[in-house]
């Protein structure tokens, strides 16, 4: 009897300790961040033991601890599902979080509320752990909402800034729309299968699963910023860089993809859902890659890059490869977090300058950041044998050799080349050339916290792909034979993107355009999507409700229809018809004379 479940639960319980300690004196001194970081590193080490046990023997566990409540025939208990997905994701997430905590010890050093920041980050991590280890939909929903709330608190960290509050509210609203889909799925499962446990859902046969799967797809659209519910992710860059690195690149935004991966036995049989997922992912990845091409804020470019990679993960689910999507989640976490951390290093060194048009020539003063940024970008674009290659190249190969929608496939390939293009843009503007920043910025990257954290993720970006993909148990068989032009497609698209972007940047380096073209405006303003969708529906619905409630009901039906119309009609008619002159006394007198005369005449009639 090995200690598989014990180690895993210990590792997750350890994360709760700093939260419990927050009422004591430990929270008030300035060693608390160090304490949190050490806790997470120990939790990572302990969680590697069950991971290695899983790798060697394939052991999976489901731990059902505590019977929570029974609602008529539904039994809810606290159950943890430690299977392939959870066991591999938890060490990866803990590793990345460890590095990010160490990075934010440098980045948020001058912040007076740094202890609260670490507490929020830790609470976010705990809710994410709840989400990935949940065995029933109720526990997953708790984790789901928890990450949403912590995202709100962390995006609005600098709450004095109006833009940050707007962005936090925007994140909550868009996630809420996705939650409607989640709750629809939960209600359908409750009504038709009487269970919220994954095991029972996957066993019971059912003919038409379109409604709950559509609900889950909507939930993934909201949480993972797919097209239609995507504007919150670039706006979420208002939060501090560690928040962007942790939430909006590695962990929270993959929750939607993770949900779809969890339900892969249901999605395997449903071709309609797969097609929908494929098309949604394809349009997301292309649209956000287009938007990333002309952005000027370095964090926004990386945010759009995240969104594009999320679209790629959804495409992978759409071609019925959940395990490949999961591999891409794990490898993507490494280099994306590192990209954000390098951006944070650049931003802090240039005294909070985030515009790439005002950076340049950083390869001499910041060599370490430069090299890690370049390695991260290469890993992102899928350079052979770095981390991204093992997942991204496999995805492109599988998509090329499978029987799918040709439009989605070509769009994904175009987005792959655009990935290389905007990565080149970041590198060209931020690192190469002559400096364009103020000359008195104290550029210093010699802090051990910064160097160690980026170094750890750098090693991960280079080797993690190889290590993970050679140690996981075999699941779906990758396509082994294909024509050579299909095999080299991903590489060719990437190299095309690199060369094109480099040539364009070099050629137009000192030129300035007077009037932006329409395509530029489309790309820079995010496809006009936020401009239209944030103003038009709300204006229309408010105007319509005001018109119908106030104008229609009150003023028309209650006032105008009978009372005012009758009086108006009568007055009009009387002025038109009457031709009297109002000589009332004359009329009365003539009446009286007629009366008297008739009385006199008739009384003397024989």
């Amino acid at each position, binding site marked *: 009897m090995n200690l598989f479940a014990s180690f895993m639960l210990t590792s997750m319980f350890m994360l709760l300790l700093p939260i419990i300690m927050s009422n004591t004196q430990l929270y008030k001194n300035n060693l608390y961040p160090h304490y949190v970081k050490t806790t997470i590193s120990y939790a990572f080490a302990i969680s590697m033991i069950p991971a290695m046990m899983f790798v060697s023997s394939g052991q999976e566990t489901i731990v059902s601890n505590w019977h929570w409540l029974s609602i008529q025939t539904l039994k809810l208990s606290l159950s943890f599902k430690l299977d392939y997905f959870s066991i591999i994701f938890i060490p990866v997430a803990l590793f990345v979080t460890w590095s990010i905590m160490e990075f934010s010890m440098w980045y948020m050093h001058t912040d007076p509320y740094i202890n609260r920041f670490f507490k929020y980050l830790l609470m976010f991590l705990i809710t994410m752990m709840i989400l990935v280890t949940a065995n029933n939909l109720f526990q997953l929903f708790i984790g789901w909402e928890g990450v949403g709330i912590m995202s709100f608190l962390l995006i609005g960290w600098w709450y004095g800034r109006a833009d940050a509050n707007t962005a936090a509210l925007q994140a909550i609203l868009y996630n809420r729309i996705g939650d409607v889909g989640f709750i629809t799925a939960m209600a359908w499962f409750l009504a038709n299968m009487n269970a919220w446990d994954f095991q029972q859902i996957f066993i019971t046969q059912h003919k038409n699963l379109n409604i709950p799967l559509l609900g889950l797809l909507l939930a993934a659209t909201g949480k993972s910023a797919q097209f239609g519910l995507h504007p919150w992710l670039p706006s979420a860059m208002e939060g501090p860089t560690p928040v962007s690195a942790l939430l909006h690149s590695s962990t929270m935004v993959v929750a939607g993809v993770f949900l779809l991966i969890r339900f892969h036995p249901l999605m395997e049989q449903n071709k309609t859902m797969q097609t929908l997922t494929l098309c949604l992912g394809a349009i997301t990845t292309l649209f956000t890659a287009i938007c990333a091409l002309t952005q000027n804020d370095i964090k926004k470019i990386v945010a759009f890059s995240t969104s594009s990679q999320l679209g790629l993960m959804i495409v992978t689910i759409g071609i019925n490869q959940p395990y490949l999507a999961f591999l891409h989640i794990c490898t993507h976490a490494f280099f994306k977090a590192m990209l954000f951390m390098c951006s944070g290093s650049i931003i802090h060194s240039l005294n909070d300058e985030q515009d790439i048009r005002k950076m340049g020539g950083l390869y001499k003063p910041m060599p370490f950041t430069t090299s890690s940024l370049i390695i991260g970008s290469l890993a992102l674009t899928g350079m052979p044998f770095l981390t991204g290659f093992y997942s991204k190249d496999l995805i492109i190969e599988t998509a090329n050799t499978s029987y799918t929608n040709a439009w989605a496939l070509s769009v994904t390939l175009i987005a792959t080349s655009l990935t290389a293009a905007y990565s080149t843009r970041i590198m060209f503007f931020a690192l190469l050339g002559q400096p364009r920043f103020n000359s008195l910025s104290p550029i210093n990257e010699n802090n051990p916290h910064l160097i160690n954290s980026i170094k750890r993720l750098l090693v991960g970006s280079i080797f993690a792909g190889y290590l993970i993909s050679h140690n996981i148990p075999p699941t779906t068989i990758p396509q082994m034979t294909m024509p050579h032009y299909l095999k080299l497609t991903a590489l060719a698209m990437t190299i095309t993107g690199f060369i094109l972007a480099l040539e364009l940047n070099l050629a137009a380096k000192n030129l300035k355009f007077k009037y932006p073209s329409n395509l530029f405006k489309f790309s820079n303003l995010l496809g006009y999507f936020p401009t239209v969708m944030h103003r038009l529906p709300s204006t229309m619905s408010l105007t319509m409700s005001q018109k119908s409630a106030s104008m229609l009901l009150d003023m028309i039906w209650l006032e105008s229809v009978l009372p005012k119309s009758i009086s108006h009609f009568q007055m009009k008619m*009387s*002025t038109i018809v009457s031709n009297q*002159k*109002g*000589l009332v*006394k004359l009329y009365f*007198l003539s009446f009286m004379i007629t009366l008297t005369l008739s009385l006199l005449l008739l009384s003397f009639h024989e």
Partner: protein
Amino acid sequence: MSMVYVNMFLAFIMSLMGLLMYRSHLMSSLLCLEGMMLSLFIMMTVTILNNHFTLASMTPIILLVFAACEAALGLSLLVMVSNTYGTDYVQNLNLLQC
């Protein structure tokens, strides 16, 4: 006929004269209208009581109701004229503008 009826009939004729011949105020014709109503009411009541027309005993009440309505209408017309012109002089009613 008896003196009572002649008396009340004369009262009615007096009020009718007052209604049809007034100098300047619209209010005086409305007051005479009320006088006509009053004399009619008394005449009707005395006739019914003297001749024991039991079943017709509700008629004075109905007369009162309709007289009240007509008084209200007349007063509202007076108020309309007074709103427009400030007074109720009959000489104002020559323009017929609404």
